[in-house]
């Protein structure tokens, strides 16, 4: 079957020979968007977190066919234009929220969704919102600080 959707603002058509392909495999395979990572394949680790219609989902547990007509955002499309970093990315870089980096794309996508919903979340809410994104390197302290910083940067940008 044929799949049409918008990926990071760009209309995409691709074929799904089986029909039951997972969105993660389509993104990483034929669409060559390898920024979205597969850490567990079962929705346990969040490394594949992307946004579908602004809602965070695990791409490993999403059928590609289900995003027909949808707006999909991945880490590659997070920054508005060119090579600039988005506020969330800048904050993660500046605050040391990144170590091995494998969880970072998914983590940062979760932060985008969180801050879209609540521009200034309290710490407990940040931690709860990131419970589905495992990180083995950082112990999360500098990640939580990066989220606070991202919230600040977004407020500055909005001004």
């Amino acid at each position, binding site marked *: 079957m044929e799949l049409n959707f918008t990926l990071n603002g760009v209309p995409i058509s691709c074929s799904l020979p089986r029909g039951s392909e997972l969105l993660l495999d389509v993104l*990483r395979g034929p669409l060559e*968007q*390898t*920024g*979205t*990572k*597969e*850490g*567990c*394949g*079962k929705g*346990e*680790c969040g*490394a594949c977190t992307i946004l579908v219609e602004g809602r965070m989902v695990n791409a490993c547990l999403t059928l590609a066919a289900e995003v027909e007509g949808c707006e999909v955002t*991945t*880490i*590659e499309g*997070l*920054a508005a234009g060119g090579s600039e*970093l988005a506020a969330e*990315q*800048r904050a*993660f*870089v*500046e*605050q*040391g929220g*990144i*170590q*091995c*980096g*494998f*969880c*970072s*794309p998914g983590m*940062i996508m979760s932060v985008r969704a969180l801050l879209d919903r609540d521009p200034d979340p309290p*710490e*407990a809410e*940040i*931690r*709860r919102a*990131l*419970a*589905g*994104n*495992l*990180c*083995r*390197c*950082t*112990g*999360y*302290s*500098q*990640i*939580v600080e990066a989220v606070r910083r991202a919230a600040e940067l977004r407020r500055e940008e909005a001004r």
Partner: protein
Amino acid sequence: MSPYLGKARPRPDAAEKATGRAEYIHDIRRPGMLHAAIRFSEHAHARIKGIDTLKAERIRGVRAVITAQNTPEIRLGFLRDNVALKGEKVRQFRDEVAAVAAIDPDVAAEAAAAIEVEYEPLPALFDPASALDEGAPLVHERDAAGRPLETNLMPVHFRHSSGDITAARSAAAHAVSGEFSTPLIQQSCMGTAGALAEFDPRMNLTIWAKTQIPFLAQRDFNSALSQIGLAGRNTRVIVPALGGGFGTGLDTHCYEYIAILLAWRTGKPVKILYKRDQEFAYLSPRQSSTVRISQGCDAGGRLTFRDVHVTQDNGAYGSWGATYPSVMMIPATSLYRVPNIEFDCELVYTNNTYAQAMRGYGNPELTWALESNLDELAEAAGIDPLEIRRINCNEPGEVTPMGLRVTTCGLRECIEGVGERLGWKNKGGWGAGKKRGVGLASMVHVGGSGRIYRSDASGVILRLDDYGNLYVASGGVDMGQGLHSALQIMAADSVGVDPERVFITQTDTSTCPWDVGTHASRGAFTAGNALLMAAEKMRRQLFEAAIDLYPDLVEQARRSWIRANPDTPPADFDWRASVAPERFQLRNNLLSLRDTPPIPWLEIDLAKLIRAAHFRAGGGEMFTVEAFYDPPSELPDWERGQGNMSACYTYGTQGVEVEVDTDTGDVKIVAMVSVLDVGRVINPQALRGQIVGAIAQGVGYALYEQVITEKGRILNPNFTDYKIPTAVEIDFPLDLEYIETDEPAGPYGAKGIGEPGLTPTAPAIANAIFDAVGVRVRDLPITPERLLAALHARYDDHIPRRAPNAR
């Protein structure tokens, strides 16, 4: 004062990772690449009677099916007791019996499943005790050289004996003993394991490997090439972004050799990638351990003896993890001052999954027993747990019974710092219906690398290009810990360039100099030292070239300055008289003279100097230097347990306050304090990531992480049932302090800090739990269920409103 050192700076690859552009093994593709799948054993111990690959070969898209029958044998492992594909028998559930290369991963998996293997099951061993029973079946009938074996004890020996333990034991005023265990732990790298192997037309091998030891891996893979008839051919090991290491990359693995065999057989690049459940089931976890320990002290609390016996269920094969006792000996002999010490260990082959190293390398296992048991001793002696640690504190300048030469040592400050920051004296209060308690534990670890190999060295090559960019090539691996960040800062500072002009070369055996590997918290210490040596050479070469070239460059600069600023009054400073190699200084890519007036045209862009040298008439020069640093340490005599294994030692103490819910057994960490002697802070941001990250692993290790097996089969191969901390669990205040002891052997005074954060966490938590509710759990993890069982056993199903040890 350096403008970069000790200041928070984002790691050089952070932006690449934040944008999803960093390339991990998962992301690399090569033209014509095939995908591999392995058929693993379905028995813990069985003779292979036959393998039928016909069905698999007939599946469309399959390019090769290999078994031990149709490929040369490749031996591997620390004891050469493992082979890439098993022909004779399987010794664990995850043994590799056959493998497939196919056009996509699904076809490969389908074909691997279609292989038919006939087994004759053999009696299997799942615990060290029964493996050591007389008449127990042998996991290995012969050693690597073909000599018959008579026991399941591994032929590795680590022992230490000092003083007179028998006399000390009978003279001790107080003595306690206990048995403590730790489970198999999954390293849980977020990026799963994988490799991509490709032969060039001359049959040289390139392998992209998720390794921490590219150069030892090159040696291993070259040996494999010899074994398949390609002697004299070379392996190039390229290390992509790692996705976490934590010890998983200290050995070469069967799956890597299988990728090599399949690439060799098919003539195509072959990639193998573990899915998460495979990572859990087929990659070696951290060694489990049982430690029997007794310690004694005199009436004043001075430690008089320590007796330690370690049993390690090694599983079916030997990895470098079988040398855990080499590191266990460090705390056993050298944490606190103890005059009479016995240490021995037995490592036992069983039919469980074979284990490998993880962060801390035996130290957390031993420290778990030692520091828990020390609290028991304190209680027996009626001495405050903090006080007993102060009484026996290590001091700078001491030589420990193992022969470790303690240079700098901030342990006293660490213990006292934890006491202060935790409010030790005033704690012991009671929440409503919930019990609070405080505990602490200390650690010592190698801080100046740990010599377990003939060479413990690191090489660094520095190269400046025509534009003043500095390229740092190191054979060390950045697996997320921040080695490249440390190298960037040290390179910028020591050479004198802007950190943004420092580029770290991708780790690759064809472009980087030899390094023994990234383990033992050694990366920044050894590569840092090599880098400082190289930087010194680089500056010498630059300043020598500047003697001739600087005057002309200044003259040009002066002229163009005056053209642009015609009103500038002439300087009355004779700068030419100051030109001498020792007067030059290089900072932020600007070459100038020391102690001169602030004349702008005296500052010359480094790039101009380099180009002037490059294009100098009559013969130019390039600026590439190398240095090789081997730390001043000794390879210990393991059977005697003697030798100064590291150039220096890292000390630290952690304190924790917990709240125990005596109804559910839940342990809530209320606050944690870590005071660590780091020598010197290079990048506080990277340092904090290392410490907090390690503490989080320590919390998981203490409270919930465990690989659960049943008759050698792993029952929880996923994150639903193998719990690692989420952001929610690490929600307690975490107070970090660094003691800067300025280690003379360290680069800028720094010590290795990769592993210490994890080491004392579990015993600190267990000690706090004891303080809170008066029971001690001796087996990790301290799950609510275990703690509740211990509470019920102690209080006969009556949960006390006040714990008996209330202070």
